[in-house]
């Protein structure tokens, strides 16, 4: 029972990391930028969700509001900030790192602006259903209806994303632009617009990750939430484990990381909470630097 419990907790946390990892991968694929502001965007989206909940009262309205808000914000960041950076820092040693450093700066700016608007204190979003564990044969699991719900929603989103990428013209344009922008342009794809769309999708995925990370924890969040630092680190590590270039890799990386951390915390020591993800990252980088699903398969969408 302990084993099943550990696995289920790991899968739930892992599915949230997977969403965050997908956000990293989508941005990486569309503009070759590691977007460290992703956690800030997810946090901001959570505040959007909070506003929706406090006005309308339903988590199920907050989720799409956060997604749309997150998508629009991310698209604006790409349109305004990233394009300007690429234009102005097009040569020299700065060119390659300027956008990445800018995302770190943006992370700070977003947190500061959130503090100015909403204040630095904890706000709270109440989970839509109970986070009290299921009871089986008299023993109570940590796995709860809420965690099951998170899992189901994430799986649905992943299916929608995979249909988008594999079955639609838009997905074809996204994939072609990621792997061969010049050929995509010659085929008539407006690569610039597709890049913005890649960021928007990442913003929406990050928004879901932010909301779920919040309600899967104690429901509290603030500009300095440790939950969001953890989400940033875990999502990034999951994306790297998955090869950074692959959506499937991001999902597998997220699940792998979530399950590994869960086992370490429960079977080794809960004091390893902040060390475990980094140790797992290092081990993966030593053993399989190309990511867990490899270069060849890893480059599939």
């Amino acid at each position, binding site marked *: 029972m302990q084993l099943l419990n550990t696995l289920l907790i790991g899968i739930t946390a892992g599915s949230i990391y997977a969403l965050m990892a997908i956000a990293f991968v989508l941005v990486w694929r569309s503009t070759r930028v590691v977007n460290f502001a992703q956690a800030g965007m997810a946090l901001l989206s959570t505040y959007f969700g909070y506003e929706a909940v406090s006005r309308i009262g339903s988590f199920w309205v907050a989720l799409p509001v956060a997604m749309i808000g997150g998508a629009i914000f991310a698209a604006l960041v790409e349109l305004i900030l990233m394009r300007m950076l690429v234009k102005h820092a097009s040569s020299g040693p700065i060119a390659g790192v300027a956008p990445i450093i800018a995302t770190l700066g943006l992370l700070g700016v977003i947190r500061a602006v959130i503090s100015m608007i909403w204040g630095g204190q904890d706000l709270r979003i109440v989970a839509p259903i109970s986070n009290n564990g299921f009871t089986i044969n008299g023993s109570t699991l940590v796995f709860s209806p809420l965690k099951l719900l998170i899992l189901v929603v994430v799986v649905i989103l992943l299916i929608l994303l995979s249909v988008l990428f594999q079955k639609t013209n838009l997905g074809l*344009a996204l*994939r*072609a632009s990621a792997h*061969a922008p010049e*050929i995509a*342009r010659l*085929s008539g794809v407006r690569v610039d617009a597709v890049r913005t769309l890649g960021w928007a999708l990442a913003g929406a995925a990050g928004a879901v990750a932010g909301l779920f990370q919040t309600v899967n924890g104690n429901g509290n969040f603030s500009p300095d939430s440790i939950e969001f630092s953890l989400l940033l680190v875990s999502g990034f590590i999951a994306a790297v484990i998955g090869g950074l270039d692959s959506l499937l890799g991001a999902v597998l990386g997220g699940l792998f990381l979530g399950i590994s951390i869960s086992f370490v915390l429960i079977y080794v020591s809960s004091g390893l909470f902040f060390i475990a993800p980094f140790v797992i990252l290092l081990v993966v980088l030593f053993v399989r630097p190309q990511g867990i699903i490899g270069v060849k398969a890893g480059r599939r969408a």
Partner: protein
Amino acid sequence: MSLNVSNLTVHHGAICAVNQVSLAVPTGKLAAIIGSNGAGKTTLLRALSGLNKPTSGVVNWNGQTITGTKPEKLVRLGISHVSEGKSVVADLTVKENLELGAIWRKNGKEMKESVNQVVDIFPRLGERINQRSDTLSGGERQMLAIGRAIMSKPKLLLLDEPSLGLAPLVVEQIFQTIRDLTNELRLTVLLVEQNAMGALQIADLGIVLNLGKVVAVNHAQALMDDPAVRAAYLGY
């Protein structure tokens, strides 16, 4: 539907890669641009398809000035460019590569018909339709690159070194296919080639480029008979 280029100049930084080039390709004709490595052939083609920005000069397609227009817009005007080095997307399947060529038309039924049309022209692609394109041979990849360009229903086809790195027998097939396509689809074609002999044999018109300048323009046959061109580019 003719292509007219006048005084086109393109720079790579300080280097003038294409210098005051003027040329005209009449509708339905196949023009070969030959010249040695570094003559500016690829740069010229990339400037025509919008990948490189020209410094000065005018490109006119079908009565419309298209100088410096972006490639994604030119496709919609019927100009399709197969860039150097078997330009296929390795991570996509054969079918997806073909669909990419028609993606801006956004019509599912038309797309299916176009895929079938390309498969009729290149049956080998039909056999490999669901394979990733990086599993194809060099010749098949070139067929796929040309097939992708055809998918956009072009009027003007710009081909950059389609024979590059292919076995002689395959080169012959590709050249023959280019000639057949020009006739059947009533295309206007600009073919850049290092394989001067092969290109001139299928071309109507030959243009010799040297150090960024046009040094000779003539009927392809006349160029093949020209002793100077023969000595410099055909090797006999």
